[in-house]
């Protein structure tokens, strides 16, 4: 079950996601490549993750579905902007690859990684986690459906157990 990026990509197609906002993360690199290769998706690389929150509101205003791909540290950049999702009742699904999680090597990643879920929940986001590859599909599908069907910010956190920890050759 190493093909979880393919599983996510198939779900983005199934749910007719037209705008993909992202700040790159190594954990999302395969998914990003697939999105870039798909002419039906507009991939927008952001300078900071909060731009994606505004963009998702704009997409929904114009009748398109969107998603935000980011690393857990980027969640911290989104905090105030997430007010827009609650204020306007806008579907804003976020797929977050975790750092500062299981097996982390870099101490700088730990504070935001450990705060990611509480911060999202404090801003009204419905959060689920996937820590096994076989759980990614169901978790991401729930996140997309919950956002588009009930008009709110939602997130799936994809654990570092799935992605693998970056150890700079110091395992």
């Amino acid at each position, binding site marked *: 079950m190493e093909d979880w990026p393919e599983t996510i990509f198939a779900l983005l197609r199934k749910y007719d996601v*037209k*705008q993909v906002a992202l700040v790159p993360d190594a954990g999302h690199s395969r998914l990003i490549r697939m999105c870039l290769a798909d002419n039906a998706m*507009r991939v*927008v*690389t*952001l*300078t*900071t993750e*909060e*731009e*994606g*929150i*505004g*963009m*998702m*509101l*704009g*997409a*929904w*205003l*114009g*009748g*398109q579905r*969107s998603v935000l791909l980011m690393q857990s540290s980027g969640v911290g950049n989104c905090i*105030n*902007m997430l*007010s*827009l999702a609650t*204020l*306007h*009742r*806008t579907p804003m699904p976020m797929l977050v690859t975790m750092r500062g999680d299981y097996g982390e090597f870099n101490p700088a990643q730990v504070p935001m990684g450990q705060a990611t879920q509480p911060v999202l929940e404090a801003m009204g986001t419905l959060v689920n986690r996937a820590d096994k590859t076989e759980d990614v599909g169901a978790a991401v599908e729930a996140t997309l459906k919950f956002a*588009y069907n009930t008009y709110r910010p939602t997130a799936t956190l994809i654990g570092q157990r799935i992605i693998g920890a970056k150890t700079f050759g110091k395992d």
Partner: protein
Amino acid sequence: MLDRRELARAVLSERGDLLCVAGLGAPAWDITAVGDTPQNLPLWGGMGGAAMIGLGLALAQPSRPVLVITGDGEMLMGIGSLATIAVQAPPNLSILVQDNEHYGETGGQETATRHGVDLVAMAKGAGIRDARLITTMDQVAPFRAAAHARAGLVFAVAKIDAASKPLVLPPREGALLQARMREAILGPAAHLE
């Protein structure tokens, strides 16, 4: 120095199907003073996000002109979005910064543009080819025409008088503001999505 309400009135005259996103504070009051309509999204929060909302909307609705009107403080907070938007360059998006060189809603503190920061140069540096400075009312009509033309991404900074205007508040309920614009664009089916 232009009068901000006169500027908003001129830019939004005979607007047809133009959609307008306005940054929080005075720009939101300005577009509401011109006339509240479902084609307006006046923001109450999300400082720094107005231009990106415009980007998402412009990409989703390429056949409609989308205009973002915001202040210098709001644009500075989301300044990186100029790079993001320049790369996408939707031809139906225009951004107008009403630059009074002050944070008007919080007591009139000076912004960076008061001290020489040049938003037109920053937009050009980001790669927005049509980035212009508006200092007189006769430069407004060409900008308005460009915003309607859907012929290329346009960025403009208009130097405006820092004087505050009477408050003209739009609805505060964000769900209403979103739903009414969706209905204006997508019809009643928008509510069944």
